């Protein structure tokens, strides 16, 4: 238990810290491509300066992302060897493909793009930046493909090799290996594309990528906002701020679509998780959606403000539809695979051990949704100001207020990413691979609690130093922005 708890804390810390950086770098990569395209088509030198400036910021954020990401790749082996051995046949390939097809492209062309301004022609440079951006997006494809396998596994079969006889046989489809079977069972790929494009993968990919674009757009908007507010004489601040605003508006519209479609897929594929997000305990039609509230996990009730029928409407398209509650989830049919012949009464007592922490999922999900709503409203405010022609009017208080807020607004998509990630991963518990392998059965048996505690302390302090210096360096680079690039 201790080893499991510490390993989970360590993974949450390292993955959460890592996940601060890639969304910004993915979003910023596309923004830099847009700015460079503007330079190519308009020929205005200010866009070249802007691309150069943002590339320098990108390099620091990307380096922090790479340095913290490499930890994760090896952590599957150090802390979750049972998991790695169990799913390696399926889960390893997207990770390897990510390295081969995405990381090489992104890293090598970042080098060319960042340091090659004097050594490449305009088109070659644009091509390098474009390849870097494509690499960043490809890495998102494969890592989300790997993560989606943990959420909605498909395209595999379970292969059990009997330790006594050595005979190898496939387990029946949908079976859940018992804890004793786990060490001699592994998931084996049967259909690669079915595995890579599992049921939740397309929605989760578009949802994450639109969140990343928002991170990039708001980062660029905030940086330009600071320059505008401080009256820095930088020729690119205004055109780039408008580009960032358009980028933010389009991404936030896309976010509405992808968020909704992710929720619908969630309702179809992982009903327990949806019920945990909503604190929805009892199966009913006209299921309510809580605007905010507090889940009392003891009495299985939610205190808060609710809108009746809204959950049914959002999840299934009609307010009359029945939404299953946690008290009926996971289904009896599924639980009887683990507890054959259990009576309905005993299943009632078993069920709560298959629920995610409900209040935590409920609250983090709301943080994500409200941060998303704030992002949407903020972009709408920017567009209104632009249309009314006041956006760069330094005498108008409303314009100054907008740019002042823009500097801090870059935190909103990052908060949404962190909260959304926490909800998605905690909501999957107690499973590490949905309905197949439990997190508690997947943890290391080789390392001891003290070793894991020590490594958690090492990583936390290293990450704290890296974060502090990276923020300082990015701020310094922004502060020393120059015109003569």
């Amino acid at each position, binding site marked *: 238990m201790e080893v499991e708890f510490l390993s989970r804390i360590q993974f949450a810390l390292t993955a959460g810290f890592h996940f601060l950086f890639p969304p910004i770098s993915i979003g910023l990569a596309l923004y830099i491509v847009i700015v460079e395209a503007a330079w190519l088509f308009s020929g205005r030198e200010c866009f070249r300066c802007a691309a150069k400036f943002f590339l320098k910021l990108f390099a620091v954020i990307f380096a922090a992302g790479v340095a913290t990401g490499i930890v994760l790749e090896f952590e599957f082996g150090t802390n979750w060897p049972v998991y790695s*051995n169990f799913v390696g*046949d399926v889960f*390893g*390939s997207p990770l390897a493909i990510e390295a081969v*097809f995405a990381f090489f492209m992104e890293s090598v*062309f970042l080098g*060319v793009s960042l340091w090659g301004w004097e050594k490449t022609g305009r088109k070659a440079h644009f091509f390098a930046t474009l390849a870097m951006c494509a690499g960043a997006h490809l890495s998102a494809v494969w890592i989300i493909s790997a993560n989606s396998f943990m959420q909605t596994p498909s395209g595999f079969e379970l292969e059990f090799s009997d330790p006594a006889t050595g005979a190898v046989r496939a387990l029946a489809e949908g079976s859940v290996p018992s804890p004793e079977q786990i060490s001699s069972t592994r998931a084996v790929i049967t259909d690669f594309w079915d595995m890579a494009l599992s049921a939740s993968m397309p929605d989760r990919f578009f949802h994450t990528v639109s969140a990343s674009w928002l991170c990039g757009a708001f980062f660029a908007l905030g940086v330009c906002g600071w320059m505008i507010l401080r009256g820095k004489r930088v020729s690119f601040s205004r055109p780039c701020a408008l580009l960032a605003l358009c980028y933010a508006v389009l991404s936030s519209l896309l976010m509405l679509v992808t968020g909704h479609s992710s929720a619908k897929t969630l309702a179809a594929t992982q009903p327990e998780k949806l019920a945990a997000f909503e604190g929805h305990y009892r199966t009913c039609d006209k299921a309510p959606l809580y605007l905010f509230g507090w889940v009392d996990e003891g009495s299985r009730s939610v205190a808060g403000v609710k809108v009746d029928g809204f959950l049914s409407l959002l999840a299934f398209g009609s307010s009359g539809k029945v939404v299953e509650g946690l008290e009926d989830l996971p289904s009896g049919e599924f639980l009887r695979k683990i507890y054959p012949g259990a009576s309905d009464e005993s299943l009632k007592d078993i069920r709560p051990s298959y629920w995610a922490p409900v209040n935590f999922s409920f609250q983090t999900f709301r943080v994500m949704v409200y941060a998303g709503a704030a992002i949407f409203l903020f972009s709408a405010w920017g567009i209104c100001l632009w249309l009314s022609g006041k956006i760069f009017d330094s005498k108008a208080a409303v314009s100054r207020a907008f740019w002042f807020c823009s500097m801090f607004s870059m935190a909103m998509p990052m908060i949404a990413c962190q909260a959304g990630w926490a909800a998605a991963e905690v909501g999957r518990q107690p499973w590490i691979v949905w309905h197949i392998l439990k997190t508690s059965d997947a943890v*290391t*048996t080789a390392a001891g609690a003290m070793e894991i505690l020590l490594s958690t302390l090492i990583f936390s302090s290293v990450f704290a130093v890296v974060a502090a210096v990276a923020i300082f360096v990015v701020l310094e680079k922004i502060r020393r922005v120059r015109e003569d690039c």
Partner: protein
Amino acid sequence: METLQIVWFALLAALLAAFMVCGGFDFGAGMLLCRMRPERREKAMAEIAPFWDGNQVWLVTAGGALFAAFPKAYSEILSNMYLPTVLFLAFLIFRAVSIEFFLASGGGTWRSFWARVCAVSSFASMFLFGMALGAVFGGEALCASKGDFGVLGHMVDAVPLAAGTLAVLFCLAHGSVFLALRENTFDTESFRTVRALLTLLSAAYLLYAVLFITCGRSYWIPKHIAGGVLLSAYLPLTAAMRLSRKKMSGLVFFMTSLFAFLCICAHALALFPYIAAPHESSAGISIYAASSSETTLKIMLCVALAGVPLAVAYFAYAHYVFSKRVVRGKLKGYSDIKS
């Protein structure tokens, strides 16, 4: 079925060799930073800045390939070598960020500080990496008992320590050759460094070869073949010495790369068919027991056949871009990073 596992074993060795050849020069240049004068240091940093990131991807790819092709080896080696891996990763983080942080500001104190961080972390991470490879080769990697911090103790053994030292000295020599190649000024001082480091590497290599032949074991392939391949690595090393006197830096770089390749080959041959060698307390992990299913190995082979040539093409393009003489006026890249 068996062919696929052998192919993947060879591919893993090739990926490790690619990391030593590509990553080796920026780790080595990083270590050399602490003994350089400021203006030389800036130049060296500007030379490795466009490449370090891509070079490190060879390591990430090797890790991913080990995970996908031999999941059992991946999980057992890493979980048994818990603390060494964690320390290695911690130093690797500092190395990666120190390069970007160094370039981020022009202040003298700031730069010497991050140059030192880069040197120390490059040294420590490469030493631990070499040690880990040595422990996998010698079998010490799998003999930890749970939670006693014991693996660190087990790793302080002849083969891992010698492998760590050899890896560090190789990177130093290889890095100095890369810097000499890029400076292209036929500067006597940088070639003096190259020769000194090559001499040091040769001495360490000869001691290592003695250790390899006397204490090392081999399993399937006869030991004299693996030993012969290791001894043949002496040829590129002497060739590198001769060529460095003639200041032919491009060829010297090729020779040190060939040296790394042959060393990795010798170890892979001796280790075959094991991924982690057997030891007193463990039976080792063979490629047959550890491998993924045939389908996965086939899929991954297609990925490697399509992806690795692409990656090589990216590197070729990047090196081509940065080996160009600067078109307009003086090297603006250098003055640019000072800002």
